[in-house]
């Protein structure tokens, strides 16, 4: 299939995240763009698709038309990447804390190490999830660059 069309649809999909009829909307747009490319340019080539996609409009605006005035919650990938990095740095800083004075109440000595291990595991888990998200966003940004 076409890299450009896939990248375009994926971007629209990102802005429509959380909508249950998302797949249906994307199928409609895909069908329309392929049809138009073939009818107006003779055959479906990457150049034809590029022109048809450009005429269809920026992904964010396309998604907005479906949201009937509701604002788009999903931020752009670039902002996602920045916020992922900031979160990772913050978690890194937290992990360097000894946690000894973290609790306002006196914790029994035998319990403290267990809580510390639990907290560290939790923070590491969150860090792994954010890293996965970050890689996903970076892959998407890279694919979008390649498609251009």
């Amino acid at each position, binding site marked *: 299939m076409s890299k450009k069309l896939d990248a375009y649809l994926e971007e629209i999909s990102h802005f429509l995240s959380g909508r249950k009829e998302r797949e249906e*909307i994307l199928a409609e747009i895909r*069908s329309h763009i392929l049809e138009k490319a073939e009818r107006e340019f003779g055959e479906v080539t990457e150049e034809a698709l590029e022109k048809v996609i450009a005429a269809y*409009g920026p992904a964010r605006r396309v998604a907005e038309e479906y949201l009937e005035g509701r604002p788009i919650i999903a931020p752009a990938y670039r902002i996602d990447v920045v916020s992922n990095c900031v979160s990772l740095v913050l978690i890194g800083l937290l992990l360097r804390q000894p946690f000894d004075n973290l609790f306002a109440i006196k914790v029994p000595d035998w319990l403290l190490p267990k809580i510390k291990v639990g907290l560290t595991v939790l923070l590491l888990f969150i860090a792994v999830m954010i890293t996965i998200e970050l890689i996903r966003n970076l892959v998407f940004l890279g694919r979008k660059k390649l498609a251009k």
Partner: protein
Amino acid sequence: MNPEIANFETELNRGFLQILVLALLEEEMYGYSMVRTIRDLGYEVEENTLYPLLRRLEKNGWVKSKWDLSEDRPRKFYAITAAGRKLRDQLLGIWRKQDQILNRILKEKSHV
């Protein structure tokens, strides 16, 4: 175009486009053919306006759709429903009345 007029045009078009789509869909059509037909009638509709509109009409039960998978490229066909016909006739009634009123005023003014 003058941006102020463009705003008025957008407002006028919103209602018009709904009537237009409901009138067109008396015959089953798919999205691309609707865009072309409307263009051939001398009117422009953005694809990105038409599809969300069709979705809203369908959600309210005025239009129904089905995918035709018999060709190598799947196409989604739309058609008006009984409720849609009722709505279309009511909207046409409103539009005709508005048109009559405007025409009467314009005629009276031209006599002055």
